[in-house]
């Protein structure tokens, strides 16, 4: 195949990665922005979203669409509540000390991951997409072997994959509206800018933190529900999104929401494109090294306000 169609296909796949990544990374970014803590268990909230989606869809099971819609509503809600509870029980008790939070959330990571292993089991389980019409765009599929398998024309993308991009845009627009147009958003932004001052003005900072932690986890869960008809739910699926979200949040500037979206699009697209033309492993090596270098040589892009 020529370079052109390859590139088109890679961009489309990259756009899906970018859409999911924007949601997941946004969750991490909000938590860091408002609370100034790094949540290492973020990927596990993502995984939990996917697992709950499978569980809900499995329980309802009448029609894929119905199960999917129920999952899209329930999974983020449940994960959000769980995260808020974790915040109350652990993070609040240690006063959001940055180092101890990292250690604590590493513990939380293993608790969530291993509990899922004990209940959900080690198998990868699929969720049926609500609709899956084939669209006749030339398609290129890559499996474990990377780009060497070259399929002829004829495979199309699906309407569901386009829906994922659309849904992510809708959710992010909604989030933007909440952050900039409502009182909840105002309170969150006030806490982000100066939590002492916000407290002086009667903002219940602890409760805001719990809500923000829950919201961040819910965003990751929403991303996972969208991705689970394409990938499958598995108890170890949280690792990659966590790493990619870190990368996005760092490149975009920690706590900056527009920066996060731009970086997610950039990283998602380039990850998709590099993965098509090079090996996915090499793409990840390059991405992680680039991020490390960004942190080393442009640290102001990272903790701009927290660590002057």
């Amino acid at each position, binding site marked *: 195949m020529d370079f052109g169609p390859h590139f088109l296909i890679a961009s489309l796949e990259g756009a899906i990665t970018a859409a999911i990544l924007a949601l997941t990374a946004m969750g991490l970014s909000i938590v860091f922005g408002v609370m100034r803590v790094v949540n290492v268990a973020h990927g596990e909230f993502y995984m939990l979203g996917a697992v709950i989606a499978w569980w809900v869809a499995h329980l309802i099971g009448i029609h894929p669409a119905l199960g999917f819609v129920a999952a899209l509503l329930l999974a983020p809600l449940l994960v959000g509540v769980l995260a808020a509870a974790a915040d109350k029980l652990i993070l609040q008790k240690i006063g959001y000390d940055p180092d101890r939070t990292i*250690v*604590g959330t590493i513990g939380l990571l*293993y608790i969530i991951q291993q509990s899922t292993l004990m209940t959900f089991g080690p198998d990868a389980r699929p969720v049926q997409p609500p609709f899956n019409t084939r669209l006749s765009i030339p398609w290129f599929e890559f499996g474990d072997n990377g780009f060497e398998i070259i399929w002829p024309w004829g495979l199309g993308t699906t309407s569901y994959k386009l829906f994922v991009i659309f849904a992510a845009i809708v959710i992010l627009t909604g989030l933007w509206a909440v952050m900039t147009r409502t009182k909840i958003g105002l309170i969150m932004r006030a806490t982000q800018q100066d939590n002492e001052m916000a407290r002086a003005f009667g903002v219940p900072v602890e409760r805001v933190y719990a809500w923000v932690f829950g919201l961040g986890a819910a965003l990751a869960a929403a991303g996972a529900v969208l991705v689970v008809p394409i990938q499958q739910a598995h108890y170890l699926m949280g690792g990659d999104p966590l790493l990619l979200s870190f990368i996005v949040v760092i490149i975009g500037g920690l706590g900056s929401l527009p920066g996060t979206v731009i970086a997610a699009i950039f990283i998602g697209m380039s990850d998709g494109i590099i993965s098509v033309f090079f090996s996915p492993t090499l793409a990840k090596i390059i991405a992680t090294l680039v991020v490390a270098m960004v942190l080393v040589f442009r*640290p102001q892009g990272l903790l701009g306000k927290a660590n002057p």
Partner: protein
Amino acid sequence: MTDTRRSQALHAGVILLLIALFFVLPAYHVGNLARILVLAVYAMGYNLLFGYTGLLSLGHALFFAAGMYGLGMTMQFFDLDPATAFGSGLIAALVVSAVVGFLALRTSGVAFMIVTLMFAQAGYLTILYFGEYTRGDEGFVIQQAERVFAGFDLTGPTERYVAALLLFSVCFSLIAYIVQSPFGRSLVAIRENEERAKMLGYDVVRHKLKAVIISGVMSGAAGAGYALLFGYAGATFATVQYSILPLLWVLLGGAGVTIGPLIGTAFMFYLIDYSSSITTAYMLVAGVVLVLLTLFAPQGLAGEIRKRALPWLP
């Protein structure tokens, strides 16, 4: 008795105790103890950086793996004898930790953790990428015939224990010496108040770089020792999990206490050993312990002992 004397007596006592345990314990536990001693070397290397210098690294698996592959690959492809291969493992860890330290020390706090995590991840992926030689996740076995050092077959339980104890004792004494030395004291000063240490005229960056390198080489020694004594090198030892384990051991045993890593490693080893006989999800125990430690005992076991009973613990 002065504190220095006490600390010397303590370290000698621990080593003597470990020698005595070899004669007392049943074979199964002697095998376990050999493993614990090698892993404790890893934890001690980690403790120097985390406990004494106050730098939390999430990428020490990279140094462990550098030592492991530095030994494993040279034995596999160049047929080096164990001693030379061990040396090349140390050199690999030295080079890797010098590069990582040089770059990562330009950052601090959360950024330092993430940078080290990213470097370790890149290292892990590199091992996978060159799977043709490293055999990736599957790893490779170092044959019994090659693991003979100066006439001693290191696969035998006695030789293995002696070798592990030797490695441990050297590193244990080294750490005990370092933390009492002016260099170790200035590391603690940096941990307690970096700005003040800088103001007093210490070259903070140089000290920290030295700490990263010593810590990295010691972790590499543990990795090389592990590969040599247990005959296996694999990419699993480079995963994030193996960066988090030394943190867990040190936190549990007591950060900034010389005997902390040994206590933490032994305790956690048996906890995981016991729980993995019940469930496959044994890392759940690690998670619960981490959360409980952050909540209730950030000082760890030896740290609590120091706080309550023995304030002179080094």
